[in-house]
């Protein structure tokens, strides 16, 4: 349903089957479907973990942790059943990639779940799809049912003697549930409140059993690594940042869309060549490189390679791949306010620094943007954000604090321009770019 785009610089790995009708199981089999899981059955658990480790695949949900390493933390012997949980609760503002994966290639996710299960010795996997994505949940339900009919799931998969079940699960609207421990709480039928760590889910997860939680894009990448080999995958990106990534270009660009580009692709090129540049002859002001929780980059900071380590060096994060582009007519204070409104709405209220911090920041920003700002507010907001960092169970507090600090640090002048009852200097200049 969502439109597909393409660009010659794209390297299609995860998006290889997009638009080719791979939701149909027969079509998926024609396109090398379920070959990876059969290969994995002969590789042994350690063989799979090592292959994924060597591929340099890092979590596509935002944190960028090595997937192979995460799998290796699961104890070999466990008294409780082990689980694989696919995180399809995509809700980071700016991110819309998992939607395309479920829409066009649901079997790749199922295959990834099974391979992860083989790697850690689990017998059950869950695919959690956010509640708003009802049409995608229906696609996933059908894909799972089809796979059962052919004996790809259930008892004795592919005649290997190994049993593996995959089940679907639907959410009901919560950003916070995208955090792994909150995701488990939600799947257990509770409020999505994060759990304290340690113990990490790899040791104590769903119903107390060791659990591997991976993003849908991460799991959809796994079958390609098993088939193409770790070396091939690792070489697609710079060292320690293997493979490709689905980048969701949005905001003020001529050709927004989801593009699969190699890790380490230059951000300026991504905006001006792949995305076609800024519409209406305007100049670039800033870029949010990886979803709303990543610190903003100024227009002179975008000559960087889009991989986890290079973006981290600039003080920002590659995050979930949502590249939001802001042109010169955008009011940073208003943008910061909208971001904070979101975090205040989504904070689950469990940890005080996040619950109270997001609320105070939102209130201050509302007053600030409407002309009631005081000079000391600017430093107060920075100080408040600083004190939220690292003081919450889950990273939602950090996700609200980090971008706010970057907005203030990098665009302090714009905050000062709102002082002394002055109206927002951008209010008239901002015209919506309606397609």
């Amino acid at each position, binding site marked *: 349903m969502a439109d597909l785009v393409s660009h010659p610089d794209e390297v299609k790995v995860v998006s290889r089957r997009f638009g080719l009708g791979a939701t149909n199981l027969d079509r998926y089999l024609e396109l090398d479907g379920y070959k990876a899981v059969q290969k994995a059955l002969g590789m042994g658990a350690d063989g799979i973990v090592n292959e994924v480790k060597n591929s340099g695949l890092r979590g596509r949900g935002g944190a960028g942790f090595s997937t192979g390493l995460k799998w290796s933390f699961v104890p070999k012997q466990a008294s409780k*059943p082990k689980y694989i949980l696919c995180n399809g609760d995509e809700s980071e503002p700016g*991110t819309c990639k998992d939607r395309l994966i479920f829409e066009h290639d649901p079997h790749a996710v199922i295959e990834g779940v099974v391979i992860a299960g083989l790697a850690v010795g689990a017998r059950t996997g869950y695919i959690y799809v956010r509640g708003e994505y009802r049409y995608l949940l229906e696609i996933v339900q059908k894909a799972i049912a089809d796979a059962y009919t052919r004996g790809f799931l259930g008892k004795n998969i592919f005649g290997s003697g190994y049993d593996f079940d995959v089940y679907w699960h639907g959410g009901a609207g919560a950003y916070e549930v995208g955090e792994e421990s909150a995701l488990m709480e939600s799947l257990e039928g509770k409020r999505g409140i994060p759990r304290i760590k340690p113990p990490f889910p790899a040791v104590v997860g769903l119903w107390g059993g060791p659990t591997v939680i991976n993003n849908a894009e991460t799991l959809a990448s796994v079958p390609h690594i098993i088939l193409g080999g770790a070396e091939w995958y690792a070489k697609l990106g710079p060292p320690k940042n293997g493979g490709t990534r689905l980048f969701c270009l949005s905001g003020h660009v001529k050709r927004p869309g989801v593009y699969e580009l190699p890790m380490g692709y230059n951000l300026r090129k991504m905006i001006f060549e792949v995305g076609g540049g800024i519409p209406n002859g305007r100049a670039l002001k800033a870029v949010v490189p990886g979803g709303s929780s990543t610190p903003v980059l100024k227009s002179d900071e975008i000559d960087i390679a889009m991989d986890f380590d290079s973006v981290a060096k600039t003080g920002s994060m590659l995050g979930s791949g949502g590249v939001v582009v802001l042109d010169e007519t955008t009011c940073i204070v208003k943008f910061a306010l909208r971001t904070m409104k979101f975090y205040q709405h989504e904070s689950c209220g469990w940890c005080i620094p996040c619950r109270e911090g997001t609320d105070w920041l939102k209130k201050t920003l509302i007053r600030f943007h409407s002309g009631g700002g005081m000079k000391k507010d600017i430093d107060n907001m920075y100080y408040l954000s600083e004190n939220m960092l690292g003081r919450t169970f889950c990273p939602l507090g950090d996700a609200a604090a980090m971008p706010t600090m970057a907005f203030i640090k990098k665009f302090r002048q714009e905050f000062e321009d709102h002082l002394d009852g002055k109206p927002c200097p951008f209010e008239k200049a901002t015209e919506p770019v309606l397609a």
Partner: protein
Amino acid sequence: MWAFTSWYFASFVVKDLAMKFSEQFEARFAEMLTHYPTKRSVLVPTLLYAQDEAGYLSDEVIEEIARRLELTALEVRNVISYYSMLTTKPRGKYNVQVCTNIACMLRGGEELLEHCEKRLGIGHKETTPDGLFCLEEVECIGGCSWAPAVQVNYDFHENLTTEKMDRVLDEYAKKN
């Protein structure tokens, strides 16, 4: 005393009027119970499917689901209040959800919301007098690259302008 007595008898009536869900709901519910080691795990998706059929999570629906999952109604309400898609109040037949989060805001999401408010004559979380439409300003729905995006119930409408939005609303009005 009177209040207590009427509540006491009313609670029997509620149990007698066991909620009726569709066959499809019942089949899905029975299947889901086999997916998890605990009954409670089916709660969140079950609530959303029940809401789809009943329109909202009424006291009867909550009682019924609590009974089936061996939970108290309070435990169920506790979960309902956390999830933004679940509602315990009746609302319009078509829930118009306009995203104004960052990517949509940059491409006119707020203007779209304002347009819908004017056209429908209602604000955030309000319902039109004929019960046909209700309006909601929502957080990111995953339409960022096709912004501004709107969801009407579960259907996505993307790359919208105010004119396109009018056509979308006309279609839903005609459907009725």
